[in-house]
């Protein structure tokens, strides 16, 4: 059995799965249920300025039969009294001393407020802070949340204030509502933030009710942009994580990966791209805390199969596999192959290729079953047919190199090789 215990900035947890700062970590009752279910740690829902929430807070994007492929919310930070939150945090730490307890913070935008808040939370026995520089709704209008994270210099200033007062490790959570997360990430690290976490939610409109014509979520005839999360945002989160992992400044600090993590596989992907652990919210809100069981078991089995003994053995292993386009090997070529024994004759590969790609699939009409074969000479190897095929391993991409040696775009240009030749 692999060791899946995690140490993040010295904060120990039995597994790398934390619950993100969000409704599931708002109260003692939720957090105790999470710890009982096996979660390695929680980031307590953001404490700070006093707020009032509206009713009707969530909405979702469904895709086909799958509900909540994407999810958004317009909830603010914790709307419970600070003293109650602090008391409950202490109790949770006492009842589950082996779990990580991080507290998310968002103070009013001045040094004094931050210092006071940090002092109060440090007394709870929590293990670290996460600075919420990412909340995209409600708080931004008051100069907090994403309003801080979107401006590297403001973020730098706030982190400096925090580091003056904090004795516990500080993680800064980054907003994705920027053209690049790197400038703010860099500023925070330079200002002393011990770690980073990303991504927070993405500003969004999930959809519109076609009867009322009011977008979701509906609040008495109106709506606002909500923070988007869930499986749909994972690819964006992984990209942003990679830019942090590849930057010489930000890569020096540990990163907690967030954004659509629903399974152990998602978690592994975040960790391969440099996250030391992951935070989960939407998947738990969709299915309950019990999902952590398979996350632990699946991670463990995968690590055993791959021969990884501890998390550090694979964290970051895919970071250098994402390169610049101009460094890709132009001599690499592969073409699709359809396994006729597995083919169910649905024609999805054919129509996708014929209508939208390179007309590289041959159709022989049959009644009722057509036969589809690849025109290898036409196939550019785009993968589309393989992606749309509903049968596992029916369409495979077979390597057919143009030439044995590595040839990138820069060299290709230098040699004056032919362009636009397909």
């Amino acid at each position: 059995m692999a060791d899946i215990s995690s140490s993040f900035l010295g904060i120990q947890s039995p597994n790398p799965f934390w619950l993100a700062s969000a409704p599931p970590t708002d109260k003692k009752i939720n957090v105790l249920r999470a710890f009982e279910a096996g979660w390695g740690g929680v980031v307590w829902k953001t404490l700070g300025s006093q707020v009032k929430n509206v009713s009707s807070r969530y909405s979702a994007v469904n895709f086909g039969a799958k509900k909540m492929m994407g999810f958004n919310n317009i909830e603010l930070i914790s709307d419970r009294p600070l003293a109650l939150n602090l008391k409950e945090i202490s109790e949770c730490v006492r009842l589950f001393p082996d779990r990580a307890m991080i507290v998310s913070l968002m103070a009013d935008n001045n040094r004094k407020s931050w210092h006071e808040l940090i002092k109060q939370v440090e007394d709870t026995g929590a293990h670290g802070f996460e600075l919420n520089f990412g909340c995209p709704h409600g708080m931004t209008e008051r100069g907090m949340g994403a309003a801080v994270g979107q401006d590297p210099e403001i973020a730098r200033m706030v982190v400096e204030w925090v580091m003056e007062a904090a004795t516990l490790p500080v993680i800064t959570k980054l907003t994705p509502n920027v053209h690049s997360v790197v400038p703010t990430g860099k500023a925070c690290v330079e200002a002393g933030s011990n770690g980073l976490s990303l991504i927070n939610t993405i500003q969004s409109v999930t959809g519109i009710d076609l009867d009322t014509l009011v977008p979701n979520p509906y609040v008495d005839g109106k709506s606002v942009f909500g923070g988007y999360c869930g499986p749909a945002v994972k690819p964006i989160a992984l990209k942003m994580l990679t830019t942090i992992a590849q930057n010489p400044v930000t890569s020096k600090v540990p990163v907690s990966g967030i954004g659509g993590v629903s399974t152990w596989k998602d978690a592994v992907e975040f960790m391969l791209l440099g996250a030391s652990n992951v935070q989960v919210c939407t998947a738990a809100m969709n299915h309950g805390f019990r999902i952590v069981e398979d996350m632990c078991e699946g991670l463990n089995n995968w690590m055993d199969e791959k021969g990884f003994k501890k998390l550090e053995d694979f964290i970051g292993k895919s970071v250098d596999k994402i390169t610049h386009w101009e460094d890709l090997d132009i001599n690499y070529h592969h073409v699709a192959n359809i396994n006729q024994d597995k083919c169910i004759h649905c024609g999805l590969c054919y129509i996708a290729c014929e209508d939208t790609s390179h007309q590289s699939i041959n159709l022989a009409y049959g009644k009722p079953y057509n036969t589809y074969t690849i025109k290898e000479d036409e196939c550019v190897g785009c993968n589309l047919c393989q992606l749309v095929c509903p049968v596992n391993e029916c369409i495979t991409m077979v390597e057919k190199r143009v030439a044995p040696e590595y040839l990138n775009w820069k060299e290709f240009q230098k040699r004056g090789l032919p362009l636009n030749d397909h």
Partner: protein
Amino acid sequence: MPITNNRLTADQYAENFSDIHPPFETKDAALTEANRCLFCYDAPCMKSCPTSIDVPKFIKQITTDNVKGSAHTIFVSNILGAGCSRVCPVEKLCEGACVYNFMEEPPIQIARLQRYATEKAMESNWQLFDRKPSNGKKVAIVGAGPAGLSCAHVLARSGVEVTIYEKESKGGGLMTYGIAAYKVTPSFCEDEVNYILGVGGIQVRYNQTLGKDFTLSDLQQSYDAVYLGIGVGLARQLHIPGEQLNGVEDAITFIYNLRDKGFASVPVGDRIAVIGMGMTAIDAATQAKRLGAEKVIMVYRRTENEKPCTQEELDIALLDGCEVIWLAAPKEIIGENNQVTKLVCSKMTLGEPDASGRRSPVDTGETFTLDVDMVIKAAGQTPYTDIIQEANLLNQDGKVSVTQGAITNIPGVFAGGDCVNGGKEVVDAVQAGKDGASAILEFLKVS
């Protein structure tokens, strides 16, 4: 108990004849199934439908909350799409061709989804087709069965004035009078006919029999074209001794009575032999059982491999408790006091393949006897040969000969459905009606 009616309580009848393939109870159930559909290109299901319903499209439209569009997609190819969703042998048509079968997964429940969309359209009385302005052309159609209705609907949409002559008092043909009640009820058939007629431009004259109340030449004089969708009607005789005894009935009449007169008024015996293994034989056997017969024995002269009904249909009969004797041909019906008491059968064996390609039954010379008090004959139907010959229609054994799917030897007279093909599925008749309509429109030079 002798042959008698009213064997069960009203509740028992209701239960025995309730919907055998219940519809989706909820939108969620329909969506779950619809979302399984892969949306195949040049889909095998569509190619296996005699009317070429664009199945992937109508299923996709259910998933996009466009049920009206879904119903239109179905009806544009098959105006009896609602009825067909209940009576089609989909296991050998669309669902049998579904690519999920290759994955060893249950095929998409196409019929049930089709029922979902079409039922909604009928309940809401969505009239999904506009009629072109009248072009002054008049066409007579004989028979308000699936072929006639399908033909009438296409013609009416094209601006033709259509008059249908129907010998029964209700439309629908075999849908109304010849199919097991647990598949479609007579009241559903009536609703379906009314829904189809809702397009306008179609007048139906009921209780008008060709050859009795009017002749083909009457119609030729009064109309620009005539379409014959008269079906087949006569039960094939066994030509064995005892066939005239009381208690011997043909399945067509038996099912007709059951649908026309109500379950409680149809008498059945205690021990019934059903001759044949086609869909009608199954419908007669299962319904005899459901009317309260104690024992129903199906007698078929070939083996299970050659049976004309589908396995699904046979399974219904077996689950209803019907027994089957393979390789048995009726030889003689014996009676006492003019009442059936026994059926003598010849034991058969399989010989060389016959014209149908199936191995033909050969008499072994051995016999066995069944104690029965009723015999239902379901050995096929024969065409209305007399009517067809009197009208000088070119025919083959009473089946009207046509070219291009609908054109008879008499100019301006067209035909389709069972009277041409000898008796196939409802869905085949619907397609024949469409083919007939396009041949008529071409003949009338209506675009």
